C-alpha cells in the first residue's frame, strides 16, 4: 500500500489516480497512524517551501517521515515541492528543510532565454543509473512548474538533470530516498514509466 502524504499542500487527485491506474493500492492521508502501515511513501507538494515545512511540522509529519524514511528505510518518492523539502534549506523564505539530502534549494536564475517560473514540458538527461530512471525513452520529457530548484548536486545523487536553457537537478536519489522536481502525474507516459519504476521497488 502506497501512502501519499497529505499535508495540505497541493492537489493530490492526479497522483492518486496515476498510481491506481498502474494497479497499485494507494491512500491519500495526513494521518501518521495510516502512513505507518504504508510500504512506500509519496511526498507530493505544490506551493511555497516555508508553508510546506510549517504544515509538516504542525502535523508532526516532519518527525514521523524522518523516522519512516531515515530510521526504518522505507522507500519514498518526493514530487516537486516534496523534493525541495528533502533538502537542507531553501532560498524561498530562507527556510530550513528536512535535511535528508545535503543539498540546497535555490531560486532559478532568470535570463533572456530562461523564464521563471519554469513552467512547461522539458527534456531531461540521465545522471547516475537508478531503478527510478531505468527504461525512460530515448527522449524523456516531463512537466515542470517551479521557481526554485536544486541547482547543483554531486554525481552520486544526481539521477536526472535539465540541461538546456535551464540548468538544474531534476531528480535525486540516495538509497531508499528519491525525489523529482517535475510532476510525473502530469507527464503522461513518461510520468507513468517513472512511477511504475518506483512501484517496482515494492515487489
Amino acid at each position, binding site marked *: 500500500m502506497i501512502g501519499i502524504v497529505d499535508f495540505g499542500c497541493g*492537489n493530490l*487527485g*492526479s497522483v492518486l*489516480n496515476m498510481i491506481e*491506474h498502474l494497479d497499485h493500492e494507494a491512500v491519500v492521508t495526513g494521518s501518521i497512524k495510516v502512513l505507518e502501515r504504508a510500504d512506500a511513501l509519496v511526498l507530493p507538494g505544490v506551493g511555497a517551501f516555508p508553508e510546506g515545512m510549517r504544515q509538516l511540522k504542525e502535523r508532526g509529519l516532519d518527525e514521523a517521515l524522518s523516522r519512516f524514511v531515515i530510521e526504518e528505510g522505507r522507500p519514498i518518492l518526493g514530487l516537486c515541492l516534496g523534493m525541495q523539502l528533502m533538502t537542507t534549506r531553501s532560498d524561498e523564505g530562507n527556510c530550513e528543510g528536512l535535511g535528508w539530502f545535503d543539498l540546497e534549494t535555490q531560486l532559478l536564475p532568470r535570463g533572456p532565454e530562461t523564464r521563471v517560473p519554469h513552467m512547461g514540458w*522539458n*527534456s531531461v538527461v540521465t545522471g547516475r543509473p537508478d531503478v527510478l530512471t531505468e527504461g525512460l525513452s530515448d527522449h524523456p520529457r516531463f512537466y515542470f*512548474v517551479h521557481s526554485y530548484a536544486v541547482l547543483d548536486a554531486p554525481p552520486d545523487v544526481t539521477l536526472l538533470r535539465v540541461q538546456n536553457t535551464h540548468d538544474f537537478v531534476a531528480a535525486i536519489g540516495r538509497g531508499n530516498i528519491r525525489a523529482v522536481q517535475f510532476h510525473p502525474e*502530469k507527464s503522461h507516459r513518461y510520468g507513468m514509466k517513472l512511477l511504475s519504476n518506483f512501484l517496482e521497488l515494492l515487489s
Partner: protein
Amino acid sequence: MRIFSELEADELFLLDITQSRVGSCIDFRLLEAIASEAFMPIGYGGGVNSLEAASRILRLGYEKIIVNSVVYRDPTIISRCAEQFGSQAVVLSIDVKQVGSKWVAFSMGGTQREEPSPLEVIKMGIEFGAGEVLITSIDREGTWTGLDIDFCRLITREVSVPVVIQGGVGSLADVRAGVYEGGASAVAVGSLVVFQKENMGVLVNHPSEADLRGLFAADSLWSA
C-alpha cells in the same frame, strides 16, 4: 479527458464557451472529476470572473485559468489572479473574426462584437499580467482550411509572451505552419482530434509522438 490522457496530449484546455453568455454557475464537481482523469497539464476557461472562482479551479488541479469575456468588463481580474497565482497561471483568450482586411474581437461565445482591436486587447491583457495568450479564429473553427497565419504573425511580432493559436487546423502541416510561419509557441486543435476527417464521424484521436517529432526540428520545441 481519459482518452486524451491515454493518447498523450501534452496539454488540454477545457473551454465552456456558453458560460459567460448564459451566466450559470461553474460546475466545480464536474471540473474536479475531469481533473482527476488528466495525466497532463490542463487549463479551464468559461465564466471565470472572480478571484475565488479562479482559486477554486486551480486548487482542483488545473494548471491555468483562461479568461475571455470578463476581460472586456474588468481587466483587473487578470492582475488580481496573476498577483495571487503568478502570470503563468493566467491565460488571456481572445476570439477574432476577419472582417474585410481587419480583425475584430468578439466576446460572449462569439456573439458580442467588441470595440478595441484584438491587438489592443492582447497588449492590455499582458500589461495586466497575463502570462500567455490564446487566440482563436472563430470564423475558421471547424473549417479544416488552415490557421489564420497572417493574424498570428501580426500578434506574435508584437508580444513577448507565449501565443497559442487556434481555429482551422485541418492537418499536421497546418500545425507546423502555425509555429514556423505564424510564430506561435503552440497550436491548439479541436476538430482535428475529435473527428475522423472533415464532415466525418467522431473519432477522438491525437497525433503520436513520432508524428509530432517528425513535424518539428529535433530539440528546439521539445525543450521549450
